[in-house]
């Protein structure tokens, strides 16, 4: 196995809301604390090998975007560390940190919000290389033209403003901007979610083509299981701030292990299966402010037993596969007494 390009080691991220002035006064008098803390990520560990595309999948509040932002250096983790080529990112100082963070580039969901409407797209693409002195002024202009052509646009478009482009074209520009930094790692956060189906196919094709040509490594965040299957090598399924299953795309789709993964597949309508009897997951996604004890999925899980309400399952390898899964079913059972469960 190749040396991982990116390693994420037991990352935690907590967001704390400070209480308002009045509540702070009351807190001081009563000796309590009314600040609220959300555990957006708890103990997340994974790695991405050079040339690999890792999918991060989950529903809202699962922490997939937070993890993407930590990897891109936008957020700093509350605990744990991010390593690029084995070197911890947070330890770097001065020039080094710049060098490290420019190695990761992010592409956001909404190309209408992520491009400066008053900046010509050529300037937008050139800004990064200029600021970080990756190329001289003359070279930059040529590079911008090359990049635009690489993402399937005309070089002459460099002098236009974002409003002159459609959503799909803007997403191409956002990709060109990210590639301008010659990053080692791309983080795509729902990069095709806001596009129409026919345009989404164009952008996915572009991504796959660029990946082959430039040997890209990427973290691909999406809620769309069919898109993830199409472009990712490995997939991490997340639920309420934790990874519940990590597997190769092929194994995951052929033989999902975690009850949540199975339920997710069962509740997603797919094309061509005809009118389906949905088997939706019962219940709602719990609030990350107050996650359930034990396994966070247990209130919705059809297989849950007494142990699931108390013990937090750890990610353990599944025998005979490269999959790891965080479920007691894979680790000694859920503590159901014999005969009480039909399965």
């Amino acid at each position, binding site marked *: 196995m190749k040396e991982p390009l990116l390693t994420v080691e037991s990352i935690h991220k907590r967001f704390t809301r400070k209480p308002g002035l009045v509540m702070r006064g009351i807190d001081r008098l009563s000796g309590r604390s009314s600040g609220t803390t959300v555990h957006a990520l708890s103990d997340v560990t994974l790695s991405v090998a050079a040339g690999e595309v890792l999918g991060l999948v989950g529903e809202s509040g699962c922490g997939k975007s937070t993890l993407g932002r930590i990897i891109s250096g936008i957020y700093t983790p509350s605990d744990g560390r991010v390593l690029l080529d084995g070197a911890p990112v947070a330890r770097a100082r001065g020039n080094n940190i710049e060098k490290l963070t420019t190695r990761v580039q992010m592409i956001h969901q909404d190309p209408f919000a992520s491009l400066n409407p008053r900046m010509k797209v050529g300037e937008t693409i050139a800004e990064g290389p200029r600021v970080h002195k990756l190329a001289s002024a003359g070279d930059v202009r040529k590079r911008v033209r090359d990049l635009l052509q690489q993402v399937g646009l005309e070089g002459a478009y460099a002098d236009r403003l974002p409003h002159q482009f459609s959503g799909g074209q803007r997403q191409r520009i956002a990709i060109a901007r990210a590639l301008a930094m010659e990053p080692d790692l791309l983080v795509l956060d729902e990069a095709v979610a806001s596009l*129409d*189906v026919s345009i989404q196919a164009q952008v996915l094709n572009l991504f796959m083509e660029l990946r082959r040509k430039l040997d890209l490594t990427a973290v691909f965040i999406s809620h769309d299981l069919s898109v993830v299957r199409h472009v990712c090598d490995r997939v991490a399924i997340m639920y309420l701030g934790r990874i519940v299953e990590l597997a190769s795309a092929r194994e995951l789709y052929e033989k999902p292990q975690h009850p949540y993964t199975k339920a997710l597949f069962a*509740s997603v309508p797919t094309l*061509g299966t005809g*009118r389906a009897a*949905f088997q939706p997951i019962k219940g709602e996604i719990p609030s990350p402010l107050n996650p359930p004890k034990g396994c966070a999925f247990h209130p919705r899980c059809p297989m849950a037993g007494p142990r699931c309400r108390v013990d937090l399952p750890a990610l353990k390898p599944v025998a005979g596969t490269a999959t790891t899964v965080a479920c007691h079913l894979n680790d000694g059972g859920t503590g159901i007494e014999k005969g009480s469960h039909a399965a």
Partner: protein
Amino acid sequence: MNKALDVRGLTTRFETRSGMVTAVNGVSFSVERGRIMGLVGESGSGKSVTGFSILGLIDEPGKVVAGEVLVDGQDLRALSPDAVRRLRGARVAMVFQDPMMTLNPVLRIGDQMAMAVRVHEKMSKRTAWEKARQTLEIVGIPSPAERLKAYPHQLSGGMRQRVAIAIALLHRPSVIIADEPTTALDVSIQGQILAEVRRLADETGTAIVWVTHDLAVISSLADDICVMYAGRIVERGPAEDVIGAPRHPYTVGLIGSVPSLHEPGTPLPQIPGSTPQLSNLPTGCPFRPRCPRATDICASEPPIVGEGDHTVSCHHPMEAP
């Protein structure tokens, strides 16, 4: 006839800076009781405007300029605005994409539901609350009596959308127009709502027009599908025929570009170009500039061809299977 909704030649125009734009161009379709019709299209195809036009919810600078909207045989377009308002919510109702926009944030769920009940029916507040409670139960909301006392912000997105569907159901309307009602929801919650909607159509006999861009959702939910492009219906038919054996090149391209139908990692077939500007459409078939089968004849109005229920508006449709 058992048609709950019959739309004939509906045409809606908008006055814009770049001239008159026809957002809905001669759209005709009908939905029978208890059936779900999927209105599918990409952004700018006119699918939402069609839904709004049916309910008479088009404001200046837009105007419904032609067509009939028959609900249980009665033409809404021939009625006075006042009469339409009395029918809206009672016989035809709508569910919107974002339930946070449709629910009043400062009213309890029960108060706003009772209000919706009493607008159309004379009854005491207490009876109206009881009716609201029963309707919440129908859409699968647990402990409905308590939810009635809650404010919208105390409910999750999925619960709010169930409330919005319950409000649409209050008067047992003949027709419900649902505009992308699960697009903003998570997949596990979407699955719950879709299962509930299918059950409601089967049990209450309400006809549902489900407006969406999501082919996978509509293929598993709808009985019939109309595919819209640039304000027109380009293909219609039973869901399994339209999805399984599409005949319009646009539908073929649309279905072909869905990743789940292809071997992972392989290039996806893509429709070239981008969705057209309505202010600048070509003559004849609007899909012509992006169509792999287009010839000179496509510059003239395409004919409607096909057998039985499955028809396309195209000069060069795919062979029927």
